[in-house]
């Protein structure tokens, strides 16, 4: 392919890197807004989400433009993977927005209990996002495979937290609205880890040419149930 084509591929990669960092920042700030009960920060996260929306559109536009030049082999894989990358990252942004909205609602009532599992989930999901980006940049598909497996840890924490919050609601109906908001946040973090896992699967496809979706997780046992505490 031509020099121009290679330059466009580089631009595409650059846009993805920008998207990952913006998505990760949105999640980080949304969780911070929750923990510090900072409504202004939460509103900022919601406002900034349009940047990710615009980047997704830009990546797709560039991707379609590049596909019209009929690329093959690793170029073809890079472009299709990039478009899926962008879609997943835009959704990460949406989940961050959800967390921010619910944080604002939670800020109107006293905090139900100290948050333990939610920051842990956020930390795990963010690490998965960062590592997926790292595997993408370093062309490291072995690392990407390992990220996919980490998703189960976040799933387990989400389930555990849901059970705990359900028992709160049974015992004390006045906590229901707060518990529901926390459940939504927990689910959002679990979805962010899913998206990071999707990114990692795309990295494997990109560098190995093998589609590992719905395969890697099947063959590993779930992690032991985590300690209690939201």
């Amino acid at each position, binding site marked *: *392919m*031509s020099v121009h*084509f290679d330059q466009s591929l580089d631009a595409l990669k650059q846009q993805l890197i920008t998207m990952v960092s913006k998505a990760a920042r949105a999640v980080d700030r949304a969780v911070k807004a929750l923990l510090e009960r900072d409504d202004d920060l939460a509103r900022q996260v919601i406002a900034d989400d349009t940047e990710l929306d615009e980047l997704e559109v830009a990546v797709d536009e560039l991707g379609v433009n590049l596909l019209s030049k*009929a690329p*093959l*082999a690793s*170029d*073809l*894989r890079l472009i299709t993977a990039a478009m899926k990358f962008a879609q997943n990252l835009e959704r990460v942004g949406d989940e961050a927005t959800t967390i921010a909205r619910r944080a604002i609602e939670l800020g109107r009532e006293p905090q139900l209990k100290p948050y333990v599992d939610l920051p842990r989930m956020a930390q795990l999901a963010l690490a998965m996002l960062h590592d997926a980006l790292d595997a993408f940049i370093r062309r490291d598909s072995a690392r990407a495979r390992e990220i996919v497996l980490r998703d189960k840890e976040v799933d387990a924490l989400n389930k555990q937290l849901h059970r705990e919050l359900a028992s709160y609601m049974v015992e004390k109906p006045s906590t229901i609205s707060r518990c529901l908001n926390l459940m939504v946040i927990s689910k959002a973090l679990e979805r962010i880890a899913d998206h990071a896992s999707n990114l990692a699967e795309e990295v494997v496809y990109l560098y190995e040419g*093998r589609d590992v979706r719905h395969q890697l997780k099947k063959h590993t046992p779930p992690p032991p149930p985590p300690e209690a505490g939201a």
Partner: protein
Amino acid sequence: MAVPLPSLPSPAPATGADARHPELITFERLSLWYGTAQALKDITFGIRERLVTAFIGPSGCGKSTLLRCLNRLNDLIDSVRLAGTVRLAGQDIYAPEVDVIELRRRVGMVFQRSNPFPKSIYENIAYALRLQGIKRRSELDEVVEKSLRAAALWDEVKDRLHASALGLSGGQQQRLCIARAIAIQPDILLMDEPASALDPIATAKIEDLILDLKRDYTIVIVTHNMQQAARISDYTAFFYLGELIEYDTTAHIFTNPSHKQTEDYVTGRFG
């Protein structure tokens, strides 16, 4: 004394793609020299029946030379020397007893530039049939129509069968050449860049035709157009400097080739 080539083996039981498409042509350690220059180096692989196989590679890689080994067109060049074996349905086509005329009847060829005879559309097809001894007008009419229909040209020319073939457009002339090639019912159709001189619409018609024809014929196509190979072929062979670098399903070659040279070539980063 020329011995007829054996007839095709009966189709294998349909237990999978490979069983439905057994190897019809096999190259075994085939090497070819033009004088002292070696154009093909130790080529070994098999081409499957009733599928489209594309030969790709940069100019001078040997793909057209290999194609021409299949109907022994290289015999026409004095300095050519060949080692190894080419088999068609198990028969060595370079064995001394093989009737080359009969071989070329079974292995039809379509070239880059359409080359109709300066005769009518009808005669372009009827000519080879007459050479085969078919004289009855009704039979000739029938085969001409059948061949033109198979080449997706009938509707465009049925009202002017006796007009000169040279009055047809480039794409129509190429389809006429395909009709002429299939009129004598070959087993194999060789195509050497059959659409490289055509516009995208005429190219699409030729490609559709190739996909229709593979129900009945084994097709081997040389093309410089990677996307064309991706669109129409089932298997792709990549050649470089006379060597077969990679041979695999087309999907594999164009999404995830195993060899770096193939990757570099199909992504246009060669050399």
